[in-house]
């Protein structure tokens, strides 16, 4: 039994793993280990998620009733802008790739590290440099443009646009470095036998994401630079008072910001594939399609940005072409969902927390998808554009992709990251709270939108009160669910049951070929891959010789306290 050799040698002496082989703050701040960098990112993005989340709760509180509730209109405008900018630039974009991707991708393809470990660490420092630069602008004069920075408002306002824009410019480099690293790693660092058709789908998702990061982020860079120069030097490219064209700015902005949506959603697709595969113990239906459609979506995603601009004054010729292409991208996305559902068919489905998040995703994401179709439709978008329908739509897509998938992935890889289990019952309760809270928060917003409630409104007409209040109550449920997650995960860090090396009976390398907690260089010896990631029926080392999968040790009965692996 191949894996046991690794595990058994570990048992004999105190285990050396990536967490304990070096100690002290310096060993973390100067680490080149992709797993440790993943954790540095984890702490960072969770911090910014908390900040963005508090801002979101404040927004909902203000909207509890018409008129001023807790803050002035000016403050509200700053708060919703910061919520958007922080959640997008500092949470959604780095969350899955830089945290879970950094941690898992090299192990999943059988590499000792990413191709450029120093650039990887640099990307984390650049992330903070960008975040702090943004902070300078926010602290000194706030930001009230909306995260979209539309000109000429952004060139006229006295708030800290220049600093924030330069901060986002710097953040772009961090994103580019992560993407560049992943592409090269996937191309050049795969273990022997790890062919393209044996890549786990999470790796495919990250690969496609990286393509978008590489190709779109530089355009954001130049756009923001031109915006900063517009403010500093009055270059007159975007500012109509100087002869510039504000619609041109929107083209520049959405050339990045629409593909950026795929930076947030494609890795989520990858996580869902892993979760569905592992917890139904069955191959992903249409593996090739699911893998390649990620790459196809990455490229098609560049051809549709104009669907944000149907009512902006864009030519109808452009709008029509953008609309048609938008529908074409809807098809592979829809087929992916159907493939995941089909993968459940005749599987052996094990309802654990990570899968619950995947199922929640499969409920929430299609709603985001269908409403996306409505917004891509020329005639329908006109009344719906810039209303709460759009707000609800992108929260359905981004929260399903950025939050539900991230939480699913975090719960999935948690035992591998820290070698400890969390309280399954509480985790399931939290997943339920988050699912309910999310839908109560955002579903009413669809109705608000079709009724005509515009977005970015501090105040609203009294007819909308009931739906807004429902939404606010939902945000409290969602917040409570997230607090619960934080509580039991922190508890798990300190007092969690030790996790076995492969608690879920998964078939990818990070579970089958590393110890409870991976060693500093991941593998004692580089593995040779002989089967696909979801070929459980070929996975002798998990299920061979009458073996029942390591999870047998974890779940003698549902809900009972799991025992450590050493019982074997």
């Amino acid at each position, binding site marked *: 039994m191949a894996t046991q050799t690794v595990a058994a040698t570990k048992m004999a002496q105190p285990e050396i793993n990536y967490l304990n082989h070096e100690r002290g703050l310096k060993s973390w701040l100067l680490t080149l280990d992709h797993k440790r960098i993943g954790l540095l990112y984890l702490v960072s993005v969770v911090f910014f998620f908390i900040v963005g989340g508090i801002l979101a709760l404040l927004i909902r509180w203000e909207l509890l009733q018409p008129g001023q509730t807790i803050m002035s209109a*000016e403050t509200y405008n700053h708060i919703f802008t910061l919520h958007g900018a922080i959640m997008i630039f500092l949470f959604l974009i780095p969350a899955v790739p830089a945290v879970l991707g950094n941690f898992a991708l090299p192990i999943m393809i059988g590499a000792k590290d990413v191709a450029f470990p120093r650039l990887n660490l640099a990307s984390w420092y650049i992330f903070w440099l960008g975040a702090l630069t943004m902070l300078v602008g926010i602290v000194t004069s706030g930001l009230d443009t909306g995260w979209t920075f539309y000109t000429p408002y952004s060139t006229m306002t006295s708030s800290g646009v220049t600093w924030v824009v330069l901060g986002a410019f710097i953040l772009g480099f961090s994103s580019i470095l992560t993407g560049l690293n992943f592409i090269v790693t996937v191309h050049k660092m795969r273990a022997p036998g790890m062919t393209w058709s044996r890549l786990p789908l999470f790796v495919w998702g990250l690969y496609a994401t990286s393509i978008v990061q590489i190709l779109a982020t530089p355009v954001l860079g130049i756009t923001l630079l031109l915006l900063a120069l517009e403010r500093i030097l009055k270059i007159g490219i975007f500012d109509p008072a100087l002869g510039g064209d504000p619609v041109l700015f929107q083209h520049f902005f959405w050339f990045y910001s629409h593909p950026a949506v795929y930076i947030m959603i494609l890795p989520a697709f990858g996580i869902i594939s892993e979760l569905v595969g592992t917890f139904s113990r069955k191959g992903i239906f249409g593996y090739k399609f699911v893998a390649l459609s990620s790459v196809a979506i990455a490229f098609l995603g560049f051809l549709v940005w104009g669907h944000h601009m149907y009512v902006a004054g864009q030519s109808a010729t452009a709008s029509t072409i953008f*609309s048609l292409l938008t529908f074409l991208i809807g*098809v592979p996305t829809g087929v992916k969902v159907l493939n995941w559902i089909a993968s459940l068919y005749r599987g*052996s489905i094990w309802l654990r927390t990570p899968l619950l998040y995947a199922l929640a995703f499969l409920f929430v994401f299609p709603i985001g998808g269908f409403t996306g179709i409505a917004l891509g439709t020329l005639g329908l978008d*006109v009344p719906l554009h810039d209303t709460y329908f759009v707000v609800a739509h992108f929260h359905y897509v981004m929260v399903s992709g950025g939050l539900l998938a991230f939480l699913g992935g975090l719960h999935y890889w948690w035992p591998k990251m820290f070698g400890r289990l969390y309280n399954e019952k509480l985790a399931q309760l939290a997943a339920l709270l988050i699912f309910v809270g999310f839908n109560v928060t955002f579903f009413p917003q669809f*109705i608000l939108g079709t009724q*005509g409630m515009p977005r970015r409104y*501090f105040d609203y007409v009294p007819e909308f009160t009931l739906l807004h209040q429902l939404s606010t109550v939902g945000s409290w449920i969602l917040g409570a669910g997230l607090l619960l997650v934080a509580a039991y995960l922190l508890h798990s860090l300190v007092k969690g049951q030790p996790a076995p090396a492969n608690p879920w009976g998964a078939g990818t390398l990070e579970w089958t070929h590393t110890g409870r907690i991976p060693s500093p260089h991941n593998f004692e010896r580089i593995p040779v891959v002989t089967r696909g990631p979801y070929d459980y029926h070929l996975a002798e080392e998990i299920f061979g010789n009458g073996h029942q*999968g390591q999870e047998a040790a974890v779940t003698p009965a549902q809900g009972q306290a799991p025992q450590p692996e050493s019982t074997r």
Partner: protein
Amino acid sequence: MYAMILLQSTAWLPEAASSVAPEVDSLFLFWALVSTLLFIGVVGAMTFFVVRYRRRRLDEMPEPVKEKKAIELAWIVVPTILVLIVFTWGFRVFIKMYTAPPDAYEILVHGYQWYWEFEYPNGVKTTNELHVPAGQPVKLRMTSVDVIHSFYVPAFRVKQDVLPDRYSSLWFEATKPGEYTVFCAEYCGTQHSGMLAKVIVHPREEFEQWLENAGVPEDMPLAELGAKLYRDKACFSCHSLDGSRLVGPTFKGLFGSTRTFEDGSTAVADENYLREAILQPGARVVQGYPNVMPASYASLSEREVAALIEFIKQQQ
């Protein structure tokens, strides 16, 4: 019960009061129906599989399911056809929405931070109230004085961004007399959510009548004109009359009081100060208030400024 309400189209869509609205609505309902059916199918299948194939024994080893090309092909082709139907339908509605009939009645629209001004062919101007005849196509030629705004009437299902230094156009034909809300749908600053207007749809003859009587009499007393301007220029959205604090200082007791400015200096609010504060709002900003008052009031006439000052004087 909740589900019942959701199923009613009136819970979803506001009143339909323009000629194009029913077409948008039928497209919306088609989309909603197909989406709901597909969604129920997807989530239903998911739920069924999770229950039916839940893990019963720990060592269960499901047989790999053979992929069927026919299935894969079917769920590529069917959605493609569906989205192409929606695309074509949406395209036709869109073209109709934006192609104004040649005989449309033209009204000029100016967007300001944070109010709308409408100018009729005979020179009459109104603020935040757009009067239109029912049953006749109306075309709006719109431009903005400062930042991008967006003219949005939910009941008419129309929306168009309003850009500085460019004319954009929008048309509609109101079908029912009544009052409908206009929102600004493109974020435009502090009072974005206060940038509301009304479309007042008159029966045809009534509209003609209104238009004739709408001019401002030359001899209106200053204070009365000031009160009208306070309303029309939407001063009220930032300056209260009852002493409450909005975006800007209240007008109550303003005249004759001592103002303290950002740089610590002070001045008594006399006629000259009020004049400066209206025409060059950024020159001296009262402490504790944001410098957000638009400079567009510089275009007020001498008489109008005098009227406003007179009006403010009276607010003691």
